[in-house]
């Protein structure tokens, strides 16, 4: 009996150790000894060499810290964090395709880096989960009507690139209420999305005016719209671009007429953002976006970019026609601008395609070339 007991105890111990080895090994992943994804900037790509054929894309291999550019090129696809419920900026059409202003800028980055504007995988994100998705590496770039603020630069560890849309926060009410100023909205129910600057601005502005309000905080835009149209909240607040989009959509679908209060209660510069700590990738995205503005300034658009000839050396360099002589060292192909313009278009085309049908105009707004009185000013490609 004693032998039985000791045998089984030994067996149990060894079996337990073996099982633990299995489990800990599973947790640790099948890393080869040369696997180095440590964040010393090395461009080690965990390309699934020994993960047992993990072709199920439920785990995505990405590299943190340095090397996003190399990872995107190796993957052959850009992963873009986007919105899927905001008409005009990021939404899904009947055929299931993503379209919108921000979506087009995802395509711009893809065209610049990979040469193919359609080599993008869109990851729809809510306002609350967008920063974590970027921080954890789930997406390479976040283009989701995100406002550039100091806290996001710092605490959220984002790096913001050139603003693509200068906006402000506004409030929308049904037209038949007759409200025109903030003072009319004392103690009102205001529908707001959590995790946005709008939530914080509202609080600050109302407090400074000595007014009270009740935030009704709903995460999904679809439900928010239901509450607003059913009258449960009297006011809807978000960026004016978003309000214009919703106003257009509501009225277009036969809803009540809407009125956007003339008061703009904050500055909301919207633009693409990437993770901190990867300046190479940040520059690439930045100059891809700037190329659209620069092309507009040069008068180049998708209709005339192919076969564009000029004597201006600056434009020639911009279009990559002097590839041998000029290379600014950004890591982009010489003809990145041509790819962008021919496949997606310049800034004006992107704006007019997506945003103008909703009723937002370029004239008189900051979203215009600096030569036309706006704020869009691309540094020289020199």
């Amino acid at each position: 009996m004693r032998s039985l007991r000791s045998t089984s105890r030994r067996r149990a111990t060894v079996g337990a150790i073996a099982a633990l080895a299995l489990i800990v090994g599973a947790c640790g992943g099948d890393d080869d000894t040369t696997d180095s994804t440590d964040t010393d900037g090395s461009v080690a790509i965990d390309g699934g060499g020994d993960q047992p054929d993990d072709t199920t894309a439920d785990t995505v291999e990405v590299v943190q810290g340095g090397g996003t550019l190399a990872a995107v090129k190796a993957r052959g696809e850009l992963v873009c964090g986007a919105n899927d419920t905001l008409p005009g900026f990021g939404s899904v059409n009947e055929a299931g395709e993503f379209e919108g202003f921000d979506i087009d800028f995802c395509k711009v980055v893809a065209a610049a880096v990979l040469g193919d504007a359609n080599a993008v995988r869109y990851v729809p994100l809510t306002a609350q989960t967008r920063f974590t998705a970027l921080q954890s590496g789930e997406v390479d770039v976040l283009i989701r009507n995100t406002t550039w603020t100091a806290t996001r630069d710092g605490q959220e560890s984002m790096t913001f690139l050139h603003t693509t849309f200068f906006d402000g926060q506004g409030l929308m009410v049904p037209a038949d209420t007759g409200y025109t100023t903030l003072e009319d909205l004392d103690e009102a129910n205001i529908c707001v999305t959590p995790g946005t600057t709008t939530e914080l601005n509202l609080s600050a502005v109302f407090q400074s005016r000595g007014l009270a309000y009740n935030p009704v905080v709903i995460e999904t835009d679809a439900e928010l719209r239901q509450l607003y149209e059913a009258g449960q909240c009297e006011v809807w607040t978000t960026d004016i671009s978003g309000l214009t989009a919703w106003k257009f959509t509501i009225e277009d679908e036969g809803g009540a007429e809407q009125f956007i209060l003339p008061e703009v209660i904050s500055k909301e510069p919207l633009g693409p953002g990437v993770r901190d700590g990867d300046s190479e990738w940040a520059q690439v995205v930045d100059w891809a976006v700037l190329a659209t503005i620069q092309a507009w300034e040069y008068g180049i658009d998708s209709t005339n970019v192919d076969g564009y000839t000029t004597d201006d050396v600056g434009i020639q360099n911009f279009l990559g026609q002097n590839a041998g002589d000029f290379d600014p060292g950004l890591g982009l192909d010489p003809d990145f601008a041509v790819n962008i313009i021919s496949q997606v278009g310049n800034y004006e085309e992107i704006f007019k395609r997506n945003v103008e049908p909703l009723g937002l105009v370029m004239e008189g707004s900051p979203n215009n070339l600096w030569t036309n009185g706006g704020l869009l000013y691309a540094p020289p490609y020199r």
Partner: protein
Amino acid sequence: MSEIDSTAAVNELLAQVPPEPRVREQLSPGQWVKKNLFNSKLNTVITIVLAPITIYLGYRFFRFVFVTGRWEPVRQNLELFMVARYPRGERWRILTQLVLVAGAAGIGTGLVGKRQRIVAAQTGQPLPPRSWRTYASSYWSIVLYVVVLLAAFTRTFGPLLLTLGCITTGVVGYLIGRALPGAALPYGWTLAALTGVASFQVLSGTGGWAWFFTTVALVPAVGAVVAALPANARLVGAGLGTAAGLVTVILKPGWLGGAAIVLGAFALFTALRGNRVDGARLGLLVAAGGGVYLLGRAIGLDGIDWANWGGLHLSLVVASAAIVLALPLGILLALGRRSKLPAVRVMSVAYIEFFRGAPLISFLLAATFFLGFFLGAGTTLSQITRAIAAITLFSAAYVAEVVRGGLNAVSKGQVEAGQALGLPASKVTRLIVMPQALRAVIPAMVGQFISLFKDTSLLTIIGVAEYLGARDLVHSQNAFRGIGIAETLVFVAFGYWAFTFTMSRESQRLERRLGVGQR
């Protein structure tokens, strides 16, 4: 004396009274109404007040369902409710999965029936009587749901064909299971388990950890093979395991190879020390595991991106995956909680109380926001994988409590009898306590599965469009804004109710049949 006499006389008299036949009272409608509705003053008042209200509410409800309800959002978007935005080209995976699941369920049912017949033949006891009525009383809700779907909400013949295919496969599987001879039953179980694992691999691809689950499914067959081998061949079997381990460690150095060689060597060691059966089992399993892994790599079926998955299908698969993964962890925790080693007990209690103390949504939020950060730099997980991880860890605590109840229900006499036979504690637990405990907790485990299935509705809050959350997809379409809000909600609730009602009835039936709680 007189008392004894009179008692005897009374008994004699009583013996002459013929026994009253037990007959069901046949009540006329009038008598029935009087007995059941108006049998006391209070009941009369209640009936008079409630009856018109009930009739009115029933009328309004049927009017809502059949006349005034706007059911177009459901009819037009049935796909969204079932599979959300699953890519069209990959729908064959879901169809194959459903058919395979029906097949596995059929084989399993057939095997259970066969085993009952064998046991009945051996012990001479009659089979428990079963009529279609018993099954109907549990399964009518699912049948109703499928009928309503097919009759009212589908627009093509596809779903009808799918249902017929599943029924056919299930019946064929049942016949196969019933037809197997007694000696071949373990192979039948392996077949059922393999079909089940294959049904999941159709979705996830044959990469990743699929080989592990396939190997687990092979356990009954390996056991049967080893039992049939002569003694020397068993030694060879154990040796095969060591060889397989060696090969693995050469091909794939790393933790996996290390574990394989350790297990293989342990198998050989066990066999050489005299326990050839266990050694051969382990050895053949290691060898089978290696073979399955290579086969999986050879087949190389891709999984697909889980990002657009959703609907009722997702709810069912996530609940099943979570309970399957949570079971072993829960059993370990329950055993740990009962352990005599204080350190192990404290750790198990800490885990269980922590995961039972906070709501599931907080764990889902934690998984969404920072689960990826816990793992090595460089891995990101899809939303659904994170959700499954959170739900698994959460349910393991509840499963542990359920299993603990079962372990407590096994009477101490069993343990003492095992000790009297000289069995060591591990064997007592493994061979005597656990089978009885697990059998006793099957109803409670089904109850846990029911709550898990209902809890998958929480995935809406973290942005996964499962069955309840598919409503958001429907109502964000232009045509259905604000239309049919209550109708879609009623449809979703009906779907949940159909499945959980069946499961709860089945668990009640199992509880009665297993005689749990009766002493």
